[in-house]
């Protein structure tokens, strides 16, 4: 893991309030390019909130106030007039519960490229096929592209959602508990997929499953009560955490 790493995104002194409740406190965290960063911590510690800040998903929440910066391409994504649509195009997201559109498998993938201006059937076909292949689901669905995506299993739906996120060629893929609704076999497939995707993309994942964070991530951030307690290489965090709070959480001596 000592391979050369460069910054893809950087969170700087980020504070966030939901109304009067402060959910993030002066968070500083790097997101390295072509690496998987896992964010762990107990429920309510702010990990999903932090993840959602990275593509400004919190904008839609009332009374949510943010201070600090998130630098992406050296630009603060929270500065005035920042193109949020462009940001969300470049920072894709996969959610806890698979949420395919209630449309055909084909349409799920073609939808975003089409609204981004790709009209030719041949180009769309190419994108759909490539994304489904990249998300390791092509073999399972290629003969039923016009069937509803809702008929797929949970694990297939989640991989379809990942394929959908890939369809607009983002730089970063955010994953919020992507496997918590899946069985171990589907989970293993998603984890394998993450390790493949990271060659071309940067991945940030929020997970409650510490073994999963240890298995798949390159870097791990431990959060507690809105603060980033410790950030480091995953091996170091799980073998020899420097902060007592991290140690207690990881070994279950918590609370």
């Amino acid at each position, binding site marked *: 893991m000592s391979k050369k790493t460069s910054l893809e995104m950087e969170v700087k002194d980020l504070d966030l309030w939901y109304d009067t409740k402060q959910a993030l406190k002066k968070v500083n965290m790097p997101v390295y390019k072509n690496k998987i960063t896992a964010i762990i911590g107990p429920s309510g510690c702010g990990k999903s909130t932090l993840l959602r800040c990275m593509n400004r998903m919190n904008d839609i929440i009332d009374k949510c106030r943010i201070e600090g910066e998130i630098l992406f391409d050296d630009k603060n994504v929270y500065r005035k007039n920042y193109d949020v649509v462009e940001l969300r195009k470049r920072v894709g997201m996969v959610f806890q519960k698979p949420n395919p559109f209630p449309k055909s498998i084909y349409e799920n993938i073609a939808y975003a490229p089409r609204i981004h201006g790709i009209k030719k059937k041949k180009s769309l076909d190419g994108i759909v096929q490539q994304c489904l292949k990249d998300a390791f689901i092509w073999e399972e669905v290629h003969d039923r592209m016009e069937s509803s995506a809702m008929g797929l299993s949970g694990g297939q739906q989640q991989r379809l959602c990942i394929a959908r996120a890939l369809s607009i060629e983002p730089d970063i893929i955010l994953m919020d508990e992507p496997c918590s609704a899946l069985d171990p076999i589907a989970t293993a497939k998603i984890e394998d997929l993450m390790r493949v995707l990271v060659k071309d993309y940067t991945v940030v994942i929020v997970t409650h499953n*510490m*073994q999963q964070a*240890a298995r798949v991530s390159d870097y791990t951030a431990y959060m507690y009560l809105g603060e980033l307690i410790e950030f480091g290489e995953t091996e170091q965090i*799980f*073998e*020899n*955490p420097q902060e007592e709070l*991290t*140690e207690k959480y*990881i*070994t*279950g*001596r918590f609370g």
Partner: protein
Amino acid sequence: MVEEFHNELEKLKKQVVRMGNLAQDMLKKSVKALKEKDTDLAKEILNCKNEIANMDEKIEQDALKLLTLFQPMAKDMREMATVLKMITYLARIGRYGKDIANITLELAHKPHVKELVSIPYMAKEVDSMINDALTAFENEDVESIDGFTAREKNVDELRYSIFRECLTYMMEDSKTIKRCARYIMVARYLERCGDHAVKMAEKVFYMVTGDHIDLDPPGPTPDCEL
């Protein structure tokens, strides 16, 4: 569940300490038996052979079960790793005790070349190192393993001095060769036990701090010229 794991881990560590005490006992008594030509004591040690092997196996099985069921992390993981290494070293120390007991029986029918002084002294040094490594493990405190590098070097020196002393006897009188060759082996066994104590101390240091340490860095070997 987590509490259950931590209780089991505590039990496991207590078993390791018990195994350590047995290994220590076997080694200590074996040298006493050798010095005093006490064949009953030597036989008693041989009887412990199975007991320590069983402990080794039982602790290993229990540890593997805990690893499988609980997948410990951080300090818990380091404690498990240390337990698994410690039992190997302790089993070896116990076996050296058994080997020295066998030598005691082999030499029983003949008097010592002279009164044994250096070997019991060396054994005492090694025993205190094993003791301190076990204490550090039990108390999760690395203070007692301070100075292990120098103590290990000292044990090496003692081995070479016994070696040189024996060579002198052997050259003077060939009838002593059989016995002196055994003394040299005993010194070698004790030196190995010292090495095991150092390895245990290194593992305990890792367990407590998370950092790796080399307590036996390569240095000049003691002069064994005649």
